[in-house]
């Protein structure tokens, strides 16, 4: 029902630039996830779309219409606030029904709609309570209900599931996706939770210090991060970085560091050559990134990467193995049947398919596109 277009939007609070020249095109019925560390401007961006914060520079269009000067209530957007912002003096029922009341909906109709929403959110038994009498998770669901009941064209959700326990969160995740289908609304969703971002978003936007780092479908962003920040932010446990130099030896590229001398296989070397354009010369400082799941454990004797196990964590479906290497640390994910123990030395081989190479500025050698 509505697409949202954000054009070179900037928000400045005196010295702080909270959002810096962000351009996004959110399609109708898209589920877009905003992801980024604390203070990167996610909430600020949402509030500008809602019309609650003035835009310093740039334009926002909802459904093709410039809304820079449209008051919040006429934008057909609803927001779930990061801190809930429930009305403390009203019951759950009145909290959820307040917008309908303001919209002069008939009283009986309000009651019916509030009950429908309460049922979806499992709040039906709390309708007469005040926010102070609810748990954190229940409050969060009321905040969600307040947005859902309005059936807006665009939902802005600021970490709406952060306070729920694991089970309820999974349940609500499903419920939200179903709701998204049912309401056919556009959803812009802020989260810290990577699993949420990966599972729910049709596209992820990664922000850092108010600047967009990368936009794309979850798997694209995960597999092809444009820089070390994105690579490090996505994935849990996070990717392993090794610092070193790129040198040319016997006609192949070799990654040289105290921890390892890693000669690239021919096809990876060819890839480096293809994208190089003179960026990488002899002895260029670079870093490589390998995700914990992208290691093969090999025989320790003549492996090119070797490490001594310092800790083994059993987490159910996997084992996390912490390794000490000369001037580096590394975490790998193995099957629960891995039987190495503390003090053992094991050898590793990176999975070259998922191998990442970053230049000195942290940009991905393979995936950075200066035009993007």
């Amino acid at each position, binding site marked *: 029902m509505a697409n949202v277009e954000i054009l070179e939007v900037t928000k400045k609070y005196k010295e702080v630039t909270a959002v810096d020249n962000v351009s996004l095109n959110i399609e109708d019925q898209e589920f877009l996830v905003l992801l980024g560390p604390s203070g990167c401007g996610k909430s600020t961006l949402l509030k500008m779309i*809602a019309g609650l914060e003035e835009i310093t520079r740039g334009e926002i269009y909802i459904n093709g219409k410039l809304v820079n000067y449209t008051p919040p*209530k006429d934008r057909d957007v609803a927001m779930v*606030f990061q801190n809930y912002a429930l009305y*403390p*003096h009203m019951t759950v029922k009145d909290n959820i029904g307040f917008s309908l009341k303001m919209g002069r909906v008939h009283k009986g109709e309000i009651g019916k709609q509030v009950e429908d929403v309460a049922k979806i959110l499992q709040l039906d038994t709390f309708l007469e309570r005040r926010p102070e*009498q609810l748990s954190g998770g229940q*409050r969060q669901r009321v905040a969600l209900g307040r947005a859902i009941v309005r059936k807006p064209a665009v939902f802005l959700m600021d970490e709406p599931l952060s306070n729920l326990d694991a089970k309820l969160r999974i349940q609500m995740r499903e419920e939200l996706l179903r709701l998204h289908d049912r309401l056919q609304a556009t959803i812009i969703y802020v989260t810290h939770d990577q699993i949420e971002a990966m599972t729910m978003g049709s596209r992820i936007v990664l922000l850092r210090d108010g600047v967009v780092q990368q936009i794309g479908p979850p798997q694209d962003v995960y597999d092809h991060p444009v820089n070390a920040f994105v690579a490090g932010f996505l994935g849990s446990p996070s990717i392993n970085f090794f610092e070193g130099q790129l040198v040319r030896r016997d006609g192949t590229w070799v990654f040289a560091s105290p921890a390892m001398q890693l000669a690239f296989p021919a096809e990876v070397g060819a890839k480096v050559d293809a994208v190089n354009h003179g960026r990488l010369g002899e002895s260029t400082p670079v870093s490589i990134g390998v995700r914990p799941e992208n290691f093969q454990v090999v025989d320790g004797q003549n492996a090119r990467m070797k490490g001594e196990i310092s800790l083994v964590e059993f987490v159910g479906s996997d084992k996390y193995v912490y390794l000490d290497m000369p001037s580096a640390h590394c975490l790998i994910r193995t099957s629960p049947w891995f039987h190495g123990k503390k003090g053992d030395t094991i050898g590793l081989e990176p999975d070259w398919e998922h191998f990442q190479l970053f230049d000195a500025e942290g940009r991905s050698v393979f995936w950075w596109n200066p035009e993007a």
Partner: protein
Amino acid sequence: MSSTEVEVRATAAEAKRAAERGAKSRKIAGISVSYLILIIGCCIAIFPFLYIVSLSFKESTSLVSYPPKWIPDPFYFGNYTFLLGETSYIRWAFNTFAFAGSVTALKIFFDSIAGYTFAKMDFPGKEILFTFVLATLMIPFAATLIPAFLIVKNLGMVNTYWGLILPPLASPIGIFMMRQFIESLPKDLENAARLDGCSEFYIYLRIILPNCKPALAVLGIFVFMTQWTNFIWPLVVAKADEMRVLTVGLASLKGQWVTNWGVIAAGSVMLMIPIAIVFIFFQRWFIAGSMAGALKE
């Protein structure tokens, strides 16, 4: 285990228990002392009040008896019947209610809406205007008394309710207080209401005001008490007998040569009752108003 060993252990346990007992009795002693101080303070505070109550039930001839009698004997109701029957006490009480009540209601409205504006809205010159409002706090009441009277007189409002009510509204302290309180309310509360379709005035009325109850209660009590006992301004502006307020009316009962203190005491007792009632009424709001549950902790 030898018997001496047992004894040693027993004494050790006893010493420990004794020490515990000591700590406990010290604690009790501490509490007792603080209670004693509070009780003495209470007595000092309540003494003049009881004295007035006692006076109000005595006939003027037995006022100064020696030794002083605390319990009037006989109980004499003449002071009260005189006040209610022979003076305009009832009219004065009505005037005082109308005066203090209107000032309180209007001040709660104006101060909260001005406080909201200063706390949450942006407009050019806001800081300067607010400084200006606060600066009027520094002008002593005595300096504005005569100019205020002249203005009221020129407007033809001497001996009218408007003349009584309007000038006290101009005090800025309530605006300051409300601004401080409203500023502490989370911004997302208004934001949520704004998205829910509230106009700015509705946000004030439906969201801000109900969450200001503790501050409104303090302001209400403060303004009502001040105006209920206000003397100088009503004395200046409302001299006609039917426009007098209680404080001025009671003072007028003081004769030039003879003063019936029993009657004045009775008037004072009746003067105090409504304040107590107002206090009790607003007090519930102190407790009821709380932001609990609005935000994520």
